[in-house]
Every structure is written in C-alpha cells, then in structure tokens.
C-alpha cells in the first residue's frame, strides 16, 4: 500500500476557479517525488491542501481524497488533523526565518514538539533536540541549542528548520523550495543532507521546486504541474530522457545546461496562465506547438506505450500512445 495516495484532489477559489484541478499522486514510503512547475502552477497549493493548511480565505478543497496510510485525512476533524500535522507530515519552507519562532531558542523549538508528541520530560526532550541538531549537521550543537534563529546563518537556519520538522518523527516531509534562497554551494549541502536523512530514516519526501536540475539529482519520480493540473508524472529517468508532454519537453529544453556552450536559449513562447484566465481545454494549448482543435477539450492523464508508471495529459503525446486510462 502506498504511504500517500491523492485521488482527484481539487482546490477552488471562489465559485469555479480551480487552482488545483483533479490532481492524483501517489508516494511510497521512503520515496522522493519532485513536484515541478512554474509560479502559479499550483504546486504549493497542492501540498498545502495535503496538510489542510490552505493560505488565505476563499480557498477550499472541493473534491477528491487524500489517503495517508490508508486513512482519508480530508474527512478528519480539525482536532484529529492537528495530530497528523507535524506528527505524520512535516513541512519545510523556502524562507526559514519566517517559519521559525524568532523569540524562542532553536533547542526549545525542537524540544517543544518532543514534549508535545511524545510526552518526553524536559531533560529527555533536550537530549533529543541535541541529537537532532547533530543529525542535521549543525556544528557545535551543544551551544547552538541556546541560540535564537537570528544567530544562525542562512544554511544553518535551514538545517535547524529541518531538525524542527523531523522532531515529531514524521513519515512524510514536504519540502517547499528548500534551497531557492540559498547559495549554490550551500544548496548542495542541504540537498545532500535531505538525501542522507531519507536513507537513514526511510523518510518519504515531496520536493517542490522549479529547478529540474535539483529533481534530476535528488528525486526518484517527477510530477510536472501546469496551470493547476498535473501534466506529466513518471520515473525521473523516463521523464527526463523521453518526456511525453510538450510542456515537459519545453521545460527540459529551456534549461541553460552548463555544457550547452554559448548561443541562444530555447524558450517556450508566451506566458504561464494566471488563475483568473485559465484557457479552456488543455491549459497549455495557447503556448503549444502541436495544438489543434482537439486541444480545446481537456485531455486525460494517459499512460505511455511501455510503461505503467509514466503518464501524461495530452492529446498529442510525443511518442504515440497506446493505452488509455481515465
């Protein structure tokens, strides 16, 4: 059984604007899934919906189910849900300084959740906090326990936030652009840390990012989102080597790969759609080179020729398609 199974999740704003439209995903224990897309593609809203932490008013989950370990967490009461948040699903963010408590020491923030979730006493919680800081590679953890977030550098703050997220021993970690604000050498350290933690703790990770390079280096599978819909999902190597969806192909071609030499970059013409003006039918069709009348109907997610895991939502899958699935 999959650790997480998202079926036909839909999040709407107001009457009928579907910011996340019919998204289905699954995640095995210990697996790392890269959720890729441009700004406004709905990748963050999808993950917020998994935690039932939708930002702002007017956003609501209007359809689908989220099965975590076989239990539909969308039907839980608010009280039951707060036991799931943190305890079963942890989350880390792009900007650690706005998600750590500025007037509480790092050690106390970690110890707090050990006491809350495991009923540890003060001394035991502090020991646990020390072990966690050591595990995420904060140098001199004994003294760092008593530091406040502002006394940490950017990379160390991200490590501290990972320690806070891991304190309740979640089985699933959602990482929302965890390295976007970091320098490239520090980014590499954090990516390596996430990979090590996954191997040590058997943690499943959903990595939200716009950088295909990060997905290629760290994740097992990729899910590509465009305009609130899932447009392609599959094994990392299959998707990167043989994308089925023209948008994925375009994204891969856009990457300014460092060994590409000089010269013009490939681009996708036009702009990503905004929620108030989603095009009808396939939301990518105004920017797509192979669009025709068929694309005015919404395409369904279909599996590629020889694969049960690699699927894309397009009427004109790049290699010809065989099997159809609703």
């Amino acid at each position: 059984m999959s650790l997480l199974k998202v079926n036909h999740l839909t999040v709407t704003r107001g009457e009928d604007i579907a910011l996340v439209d019919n998204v289905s995903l699954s995640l095995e224990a210990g697996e790392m899934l890269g959720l890729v897309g441009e700004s406004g593609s709905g990748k963050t809203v999808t993950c917020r919906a998994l935690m039932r932490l939708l930002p702002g008013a007017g956003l609501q989950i209007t359809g689908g189910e989220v099965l975590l370990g076989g239990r539909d967490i969308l039907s839980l009461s608010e009280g039951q849900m707060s036991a799931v948040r943190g305890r079963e699903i942890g989350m880390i963010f792009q900007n650690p300084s706005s998600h750590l408590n500025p007037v509480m020491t790092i050690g106390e923030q970690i110890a707090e959740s050990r006491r809350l979730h495991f009923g540890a006493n003060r001394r035991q919680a502090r020991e646990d906090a020390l072990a966690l800081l050591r595990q995420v590679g904060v140098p001199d953890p004994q003294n760092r326990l008593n530091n406040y977030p502002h006394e940490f550098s950017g990379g160390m703050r991200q490590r501290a936030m990972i320690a806070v997220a891991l304190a309740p021993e979640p089985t699933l970690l959602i990482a929302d652009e965890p390295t976007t604000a970091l320098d490239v050498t520090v980014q590499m350290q954090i990516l390596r840390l996430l990979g090590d933690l996954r191997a040590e703790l058997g943690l499943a990770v959903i990595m939200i990012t716009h950088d295909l390079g990060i997905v290629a280096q760290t994740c097992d599978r990729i899910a590509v989102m465009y305009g609130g819909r899932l447009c392609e999902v599959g094994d990392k190597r299959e998707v990167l080597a043989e994308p089925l969806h023209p948008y994925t192909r375009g994204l891969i071609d856009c990457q300014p790969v460092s060994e590409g030499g000089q010269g013009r970059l490939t681009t996708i013409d036009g702009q990503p759609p905004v929620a108030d003006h989603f095009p009808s039918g396939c939301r990518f069709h105004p920017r797509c080179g192979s669009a025709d009348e068929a694309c005015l109907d919404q395409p369904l997610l279909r599996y590629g020729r020889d694969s049960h895991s690699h699927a894309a939502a397009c009427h004109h899958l790049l290699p010809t398609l065989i099997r159809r699935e609703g």
Partner: protein
Amino acid sequence: MAHSNWPLLEADNLSVTFPVSGGLWQAKKVVHAVNQVTIQIYPGETLGLVGESGSGKSTLGRALLQLERVATGEVRFEGLRITHGLTSDIARLRQQSAMIFQDPFASLNPRQTVGESIAEVLRVHQKVPRAQVAQRVAELLTLVGLRTQQASAKPSQLSGGQCQRAGIARALAIEPRLIVADECVAALDVSIQGQIVNLLMDLREKMGLAILFIAHDLAIVRRLCDRVAVMYLGRIVEEGPTEALFTRPLHPYTAALVSAIPEIDPDKPLPKNVLGGEPPSPIAVPPGCAFHPRCPYAQVQCRTGEPPLTRQIANHAYACVLNHEGDETVFPLIRGSIDEAQAC
C-alpha cells in the same frame, strides 16, 4: 569576441565601505563590501559577475555607475575620471549607461503606465523631439517584444516577464552603451528567463551594447557572457574567458561553484566532496586568503597576512597561491570534504 583595446569602463583598486554600528559603547566598524577591485569592460562585451550573496557583486555594479560612494580607487569611463571627476563627465556616464533590476515590479512606477515610464526617460534626456516621443515609445516596446498597445498598461496588469521587458525598454530609451543587469532574470520562471536572456543577446548584437551581467546562476552566465569575474567577500578571486573559466578554473572557489551546479542529467551526479561551511560575514573577513577556512587546498601561508596576489596567465587572472604546474588541477574539486573543511 573581438573588441577594441580601450576599455569602455574601468575600475582601479576600487573599494566601497559601509559603516556598521558596533553597539552602544563599541567603536564603529566598517564593512569592506568591495575591496581593491580592478576590472575592465570593453565596448560590446558581456562581462559576467558571479558570487554568492553578500559577495559584493551588486555593490560593485552600483559603484561602477557612481550610485555608491567610492572609498578608495577610481572609476574611468572612456578614459575620463568619474570618481571625484567633473560633473560633465559624470553626466556623460549617466547618459550612456543604464541599469536593469531584479524585481521587475519594484523598478517601475505602479501609478504610471509603461508608456509614460518610458516617455519620461525620453523627455528628461531629450532624446527625441516631443512630437516623436509616442512613436519612439512604440519602437522601443516592439524592440523588446511587447505589443505597442501595452504602452497603456500599468505594471500590475503585466506579468513578471513582460514587466522585465518594459524595464529593459526603459533602460534602452537613453540609447546606452553600457547596461548593468543586476540579477535581472533571477525572479522569473525558467521558460521566461530564456526569453529575456535571448533578448539581451539580440540587443547586444543590434546595438553593440556592453553588458555587466550580475548573476548567481552560472549556467546562464556561461550561455551569455564573453568573460566572467568571480567575487568572494568583496574581492575578485578569478577572472577570465568564459569557457576557460568553466572548463579549467584556477581558483578552488570557482571550481567549487562550477561543480555545485545541479545538472539535469541524472547520470552526472554532484561530486562526492561538497564544499563545507558557508561564506563568512563580510564584517569579520578571515585574515590571509578570505576563502581559506573553506578551502580544501589551504596551506599554512593562506591563513595569515595579506590576501594572495592576483596572478595572470595569458588573459586569465586568479588570486590563489596554487601554481597549477603540470597536470595539477583543482577541478573537479577532488580534495577535502565537509569535515576537513570544518576542521580548519
């Protein structure tokens, strides 16, 4: 790229300092944001300036255009002194240089239409007779790939990429010879980044623009730039032709930066040894070579005294004590690891 022998803009031993309050009873300290930088930009050339946050690359870009007070050293534009120079020379620099910023929304007036923002520049600099302003605005919008009707749009009605194009049109309105582009694609989506980079390439060809391209995305820098300078804690540690710098970096820091780019090919994994630590605060720059606490090649002489001198091999300069004799190379970064670097 072929260029004339005289630099368009050059800086000699340029330093920029900022005061920081050191607490109530402590002495005032200064941060050397830019430290003894010597750099040249030739006409029609694109120079990439890369480095991590806090390395002083934006400050250097602003100081070159006289937007920051220079502490020591001087800047020359076409051989004429700008630092403590004549007002007329500074005015000349202003008329021939422009800047593009990172946040496309913040760099345009939200209450002005895009057309008005561009027309304002044309009027202030008296580039065209009043009657032709509207026509010139339309030309500029077409040049950067916007529709002429979009002149009447407010920035809030445009997307990030379109706003960045408008910002570029505004910079081009003065017909500059030099553009300083400060992280101008960092805030844009991947598919839009390429559009803006291609636009800069086209403009460079059409107008013979010199561009100082400040960025932290090395892959884009490699695509666009003729030469690259790498900054670390206020100093330029390596400078050379783009391909040489990427394929055979001479400074260990450049080697670390280049090998930390996550490639899209899963079969080309990141190197086993990652650079440990983080850039120290510019307030407390380590003595000797500022990079030594993180450098896997650091030697005793790196830890004290003055920073290493800049050495020149043909048109490739670097500030490091390593000799690179024979086949010795720092790339890919092979020695050292996090633990060793932290032990230093």
